[in-house]
């Protein structure tokens, strides 16, 4: 069963998410799932397979194709104290529910001091030739909106912990999960005794240095963290030490960890899979320029998808995506400053 973690808790990224959902549903009867085809079919990625059988159709609710209606209903249920988790079939389709997220859910606490404990899962990203409507990384649309939390795990263990934290958090949380990593990324899930209640109880700013290095800082999230690590590994043989920081949580952002690494290395590259213009890298670069300027030895640099839709042709997509070669090249160029 894909939703059962293996005994030794080695699991794929997809299983890690499913395992967290299952455990949270067992722990708290207020937690329920809504989404298209999530019940008997188990979702188009089979992530929720088996959950309806364990928890009944009252807790794994198939919805019509109605993103706004679904997110709106989840907001209404959350206002009354339920803990809905909405699966958007592809992150690209969340645009149809945009208003419910950015105006209704995001502003509720500021407006009325009533919390909306809601999780919206966004299967994101490309790399598989899925074309313009099934490959997008839409996190930047929401990072402009005060009141939403946004997480983007890169590793199975973080996918597990952050899903639990997102469910227990009293705020609306967008959970950006990368489709490319679903079955490719594997990791060891933490045992209950290895995770503090605090880290499970809320989504908190929390970037992590996943590879140390004293030459250039590389900031990334999601799938691209893995590519940054590959580039860093290749460069180490050439005597360039890149420090890779996995941002993990984009809102609220861990400015401290970013600043610490940038101040140490004086050179920074930001890598994301979303298009360049108005991407989250622009915000991070601006913050670094504002707050770490005297520590910089080079202008902050961004590497991102070009400002085009993602094509179906795999070679064109592959060439456009930041990759270990282009990332290594950018790091080398920064290192020369």
């Amino acid at each position, binding site marked *: 069963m894909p939703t059962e973690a293996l005994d030794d808790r080695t699991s794929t990224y997809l299983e890690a998410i499913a395992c967290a959902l299952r455990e949270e549903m067992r722990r708290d009867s207020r937690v*329920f799932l809504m989404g298209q085809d999530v019940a008997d079919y188990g979702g188009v990625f089979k992530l929720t397979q088996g959950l309806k059988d364990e928890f009944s159709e*009252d807790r794994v*609710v198939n*919805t*019509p194709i*109605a993103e*706004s*209606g*679904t*997110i*709106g*209903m*989840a*907001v*209404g*249920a*959350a*206002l*009354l*104290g*339920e803990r*809905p988790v909405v699966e958007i079939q592809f992150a690209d389709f969340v645009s149809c529910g945009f*208003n*419910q997220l950015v*105006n*209704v859910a995001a502003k*509720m*606490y*500021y*407006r*009325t*001091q*009533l*919390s909306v404990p809601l999780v919206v899962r966004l299967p994101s990203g490309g790399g598989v030739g899925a074309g313009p409507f099934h490959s997008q990384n839409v996190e930047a649309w929401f990072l402009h909106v*005060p*009141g939403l*939390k946004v997480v983007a795990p890169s590793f199975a263990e973080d996918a597990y912990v952050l899903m639990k934290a997102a469910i227990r958090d*009293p*705020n609306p949380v967008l959970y950006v999960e990368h489709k490319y990593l679903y079955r490719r990324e594997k990791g060891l899930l933490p045992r209950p005794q290895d995770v503090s209640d605090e880290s499970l109880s809320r989504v908190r700013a929390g970037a992590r240095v996943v590879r140390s290095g004293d030459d250039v800082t590389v900031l990334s999230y999601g799938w691209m963290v893995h590519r940054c690590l590959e580039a860093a590994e290749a460069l180490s043989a050439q005597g360039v030490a890149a420090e890779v920081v996995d941002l993990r949580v984009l809102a*609220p952002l861990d400015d401290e960890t970013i600043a610490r690494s940038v101040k140490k290395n004086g050179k920074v590259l930001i890598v994301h899979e979303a298009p360049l213009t108005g991407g989250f890298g622009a915000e991070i670069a601006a913050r670094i320029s504002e707050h770490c300027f005297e520590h910089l030895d080079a202008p902050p640099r961004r590497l991102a998808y070009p400002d085009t839709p993602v094509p179906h042709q795999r070679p064109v997509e592959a060439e456009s995506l930041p990759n270990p070669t282009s990332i290594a090249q950018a790091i080398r160029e920064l290192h020369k400053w």
Partner: protein
Amino acid sequence: MSETQQLKTGQLSDAALLEFHFFMRLSREWELRFEKLFRTGAVAKWYSAVGNEAITVPAATCIEAGDALFTLHRDSGAILRYYLDVEELLPGRVPVSQPRRKPGVASGELFYRLACQVLGAAAGFSEGYERSYHYNVIDADAELIHVGMISHLGAMIPVAAGAAFALKRRGSDRVALNFIGDGGTSTGDFHEGLNMAAVLRAPLILVIENNQYALSTPVRQQYAAESLAARAAGYGIPGARVDGHDAEAVWAEVGRAVDRARNGEGPTVIEAVVQRLRGHSEGDDSHLLFSEEDRKAALELDCLRTFEGKLVERDLVSRDYLDDIRETCARLVLEVADRALASRESEPEAGERPIYAD
């Protein structure tokens, strides 16, 4: 079971009629007072609910503590009816058909905070961070669930459907009553929310206050269907069209819908057609676009005057009683508005407002 519930399929009791009257009059005096305050600049914006009392008061009479109320900007009648216990405000003066709130929840305090809310005062429900009726108050102990206006209109409907679904999931027989205008029915969320409520059999009652204009746009430019109630058929749920000036007719339709919802039979749409008497908001001139016919009709169709006429005709009350209730309501509103205005003189400085719940 309360008296009002028992009477739902029959006639309204005399007590219930007098209670309707009290809240219709209270809502009217509330409107007139805050309209005046709007003209002095003390209120930021005002959307008149004058003329909607025969919809809002009877509809809200059909729900009880623990039911959820979703309102827009012309729904002071529903809010006052849902919040207040007349016996607490005016002991012994108006017959009570049905206790409104649980004992211990102070109507006076809710009344005061509502006045503060529409005045943007710190003691209002949104502490001054939200304007007029754009606020929520959810108090589990008081069994008070009120979600105020979301300006995107149709966006209210899925949220109300979700609240209704949550109430059903808990195994309770509580329902959600959601008001929307004719304008809001053209949004995509109207369709998505109603369709999902129907599929999930959520206990939702959607009351469309069709005042025949979306700001300035008449219904003929909004939809080509014969009625909005007719849309219900497309969702496989009942829809009814009712004269929104007739309090008893509205009460009967909403009562039936609430009964259905409590019995697990899912949502209902009720279209209450009413003549808009004023501009979209006080201070705009959209009413100048009303047709001559509509303007004439508006003058003749004052639901409160009609209702009071019926009460006198049926020998339930005297003209003196009506005058007395009018003066009493005006005084209650004046007092609470003055207190709320005075509270603005000595408000604490607004601190930093968190965007995340902790």
